[in-house]
């Protein structure tokens, strides 16, 4: 009967097994517990969301952009007072199709999820409440811009050049954020991509927007002055490339100011060749058109090819017609804002502050300076150039009474779309408060439509 010691050893082995089991338990229930609770596979998260009262989203003046309201006896819904006008920025909070826009990127704050999972207060409070998010948007201006844009496709971006706060960001066509779940199939079937935020995620051919670069570089580097004159005879050979101007017979003798205002291609091409691709690339970089932009909602990079890497023909084409250049309206607006701000580029931002349910401010975004695009006197000169473009030039439709507007406008051909009409500028010209960029798809062969819309926006914001 000597198997008993074996029994004992067997028992010890099995009991050790129980000890071993403590390891995975500790792992799952202590070490990675929070990760499991937050896992996307975890359906309990949905149930937990229902238990929290989501915070609201406000504009800069306290107007409601998104809030949760009771629906029926025991349900809740998310309502969007501005509806389509601010849909791309504010985003949506749909049961089936998830979240987008500010509703997505500020979700943690709106649900105050971080504190919810750990706070003991959860036991005692009647209902957990998320934090409120205050945006930089101006609801009235946003609405006005949306109405002005109407049934056309395109985008409007308005920024305070002194701080970088985004005052208006409209994209059309738009959608009803409260009806995303119901209208999803219809939305997806539409050919005009209503969910796309054209202001941040749709790079456009900017046409002659590179004129701004050329002018900035020229003035900043001293390669030209406002009073310099050029001879334009309608067509010329610039740097070995044939360039045609419109009108056919040319502008004759034209100053830089005039060339800029009238978009004289020959003058600009001459300047561009004089400056050379390296210098222009440098200014493109300074304007931030090469880097990865940051914003509280998703943005796409603009695509600007290296001018030093292209042949002469492409170089001229890029400078004059924006070939190989694609800019988002936000990038364009930021450029205008940099010039408006004395040559200092500010980081655009949407979220002004986050406050808890008691009104206590938890987070406040300070304006952030990104760099200098040109010297302040160059900026002033450019401002003057742009003012005359509005007074007498291609951007004249942007003018409004009482306030001097500075800006440039034009059109750019895009295959399959047509001729886009665009404008970028700021007002008041002498001490700018608003910088605006407008792009209208298929908006006619000139910048008129865009300029006119911009005028309407300036009107709404500066009165």
């Amino acid at each position, binding site marked *: *009967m*000597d*198997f*008993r*010691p*074996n*029994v*004992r*050893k*067997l*028992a010890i082995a*099995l*009991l050790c*097994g*129980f000890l*071993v*089991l*403590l*390891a*995975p*338990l*500790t792992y*799952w*229930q*202590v070490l*990675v*517990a*929070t*990760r*499991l*609770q937050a*896992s996307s*596979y*975890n*359906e*309990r998260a949905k*149930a937990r969301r229902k238990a929290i009262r989501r915070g609201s989203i406000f504009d800069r003046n306290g107007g409601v952009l998104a809030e949760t309201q009771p629906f029926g006896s025991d349900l809740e819904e998310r309502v969007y007072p501005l509806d389509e006008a601010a849909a791309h920025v504010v985003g949506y909070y749909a049961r089936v199709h998830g979240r987008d826009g500010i509703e997505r990127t500020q979700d943690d704050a709106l649900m105050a999820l971080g504190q919810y999972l750990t706070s003991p207060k959860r036991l005692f409070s009647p209902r957990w409440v998320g934090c409120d998010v205050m945006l930089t948007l101006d609801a009235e201006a946003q609405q006005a811009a949306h109405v002005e844009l109407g049934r056309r496709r395109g985008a409007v971006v308005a920024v305070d050049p002194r701080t970088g706060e985004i005052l208006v960001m409209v994209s059309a066509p738009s959608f009803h954020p409260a009806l995303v779940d119901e209208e999803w199939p219809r939305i997806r079937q539409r050919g005009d991509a209503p969910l796309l935020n054209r202001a941040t995620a749709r790079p456009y051919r900017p046409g002659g927007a590179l004129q701004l670069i050329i002018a900035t570089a020229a003035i900043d580097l001293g390669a030209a002055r406002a009073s310099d004159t050029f001879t334009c005879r309608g067509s010329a050979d610039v740097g070995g490339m044939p360039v045609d101007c419109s009108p056919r017979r040319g502008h004759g003798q034209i100053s830089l100011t005039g060339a800029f205002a009238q978009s004289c291609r020959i003058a600009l091409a001459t300047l561009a060749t004089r400056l050379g691709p390296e210098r222009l690339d440098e200014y493109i970089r300074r304007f931030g058109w090469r880097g990865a932009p940051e914003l509280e909602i998703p943005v796409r990079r603009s695509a600007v090819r290296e001018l030093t890497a292209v042949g002469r023909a492409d170089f001229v084409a890029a400078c004059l017609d924006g070939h190989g250049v694609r800019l988002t309206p936000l990038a364009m607006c930021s450029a205008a804002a940099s010039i408006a701000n004395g040559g200092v580029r500010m980081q655009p931002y949407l979220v002004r502050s986050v406050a808890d349910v008691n009104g206590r401010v938890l987070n406040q975004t300070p304006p952030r300076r990104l760099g200098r695009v040109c010297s302040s006197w160059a900026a002033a000169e450019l401002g003057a150039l742009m003012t005359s473009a509005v007074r007498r030039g291609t951007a004249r439709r942007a003018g409004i009474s009482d306030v001097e507007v500075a800006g440039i406008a034009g059109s750019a051909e895009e295959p399959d779309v047509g001729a886009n009409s665009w404008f970028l500028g700021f007002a008041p010209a002498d001490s700018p408060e608003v910088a605006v960029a407008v792009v209208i798809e298929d908006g006619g062969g000139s910048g008129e439509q865009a300029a006119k819309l911009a005028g309407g926006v300036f009107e709404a914001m500066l009165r």
Partner: protein
Amino acid sequence: MVSVRGSRDSGAQLERALLLLGGGVVVIGFLLTSLGMGESWVRTVRIFLVPGAFLLASFALDGIHSPRERLILPMVALLCGVGICCLWLVDDWQMSKQLLWITLGAALLVGTYHVVPEPARLGRYKYLCGAIAAALIVVTMIWGRAATQDGPKLWLGFGPFSFQPAEAAKLLMSIFLAGFLAERFKAQRVAPGERSRASPSIRYMGPVILVVGLCLAMFVLQSDLGAAMLFFGLFVAMLYVGVGRLQYVLMSIALFLAGAGLAYQYSPKVASRVSIWLDPWGSGDYGAGQIRESLLCFGEGGIFGTGLGLGMVGRLPAASTDLIFAVIGEQMGMLGCTAILLLYAMLVYRSFRIAWRSEDAFSSLLATALATVLAVQTLTIIGGVTRLIPLTGITLPFVSYGGSSMATNLVAVGLLLAISRQPGGSSVPGVTDI
């Protein structure tokens, strides 16, 4: 004639005190569950059935007046009660049925205890038991019913009744193995005080290897991997106890791994189980959802648990049977899981203690087998549910829903208590009795 009447001695008092305390824990747990679920208090009355049944059993077991094991019954009662609380959250109807199984099982426990006054005599029926076990397994494999489309056929049904023969088979196989080994040991008679010379050689184990191998093959063919693990574990354990040399154990494990490797190559089910085990988050197989949800339950529980009745186990498949420990994990947290683990460990310890304190070879070996089955089953399912090892389909003793499982385990407890019906002190000199 005069017979010794056992008046209430301290062992019985301890047992009943623990049963009352355990009953209190279970009643409070059930109450909390009803509060957590928002159910009415009135239905809480049902829970008294569990401590009640075991308390009655405790009295019924004292008909025969020798000291016996006192700690196992309260622990079993508590585990059954915890199981009931968890089942309520998962499936109200199954909980009611489980109450029935527990009551019947308790009766079976008492019955076994009294019907088998001399457990040693069971050893006479070893070959019969072995044969019935093998027969049951074969019959189930051919005529049995399965729970799901291509799941293993686990049930035999007679009209409205059905049971899982694998459960009975594990008891019968324990008797067979114990009896067989005991007979082999008899060949070496040890005079008191003398140490044995040599252990039985492996050749003696021949028939055992054959029978167990057959059963294993049948389980594996069916992909009833849980039962296969259990039988294999039992076999290796008894092999070690019988032969005492570790190399045979290692050889068996090597064979097992080789077999497992083969299975992985040729059986898509096994391959699927292993891949789910290795990466439950990425795998798209059906089973991956099981282990994912299980782990999520543990994560949700954290250290203290969500509280009874507050777990959200709706998406957990097989929550009442295989994955019930995850339900415990979510509601009672790491602290609760550790407590339950400790209870199982102590249960296993006390069962083994009965084994090495038992005076005759067969009883001792039978107790060893039963303790091993309990331990292996518990370790396998908890290991699987926590992703330490691949998940297999076996029940957590006393807690999982299942009439056959509950009945078999309670009968096993009855056997253990019967074996423990000893006067104090080991009759084998030279072995310290702890």
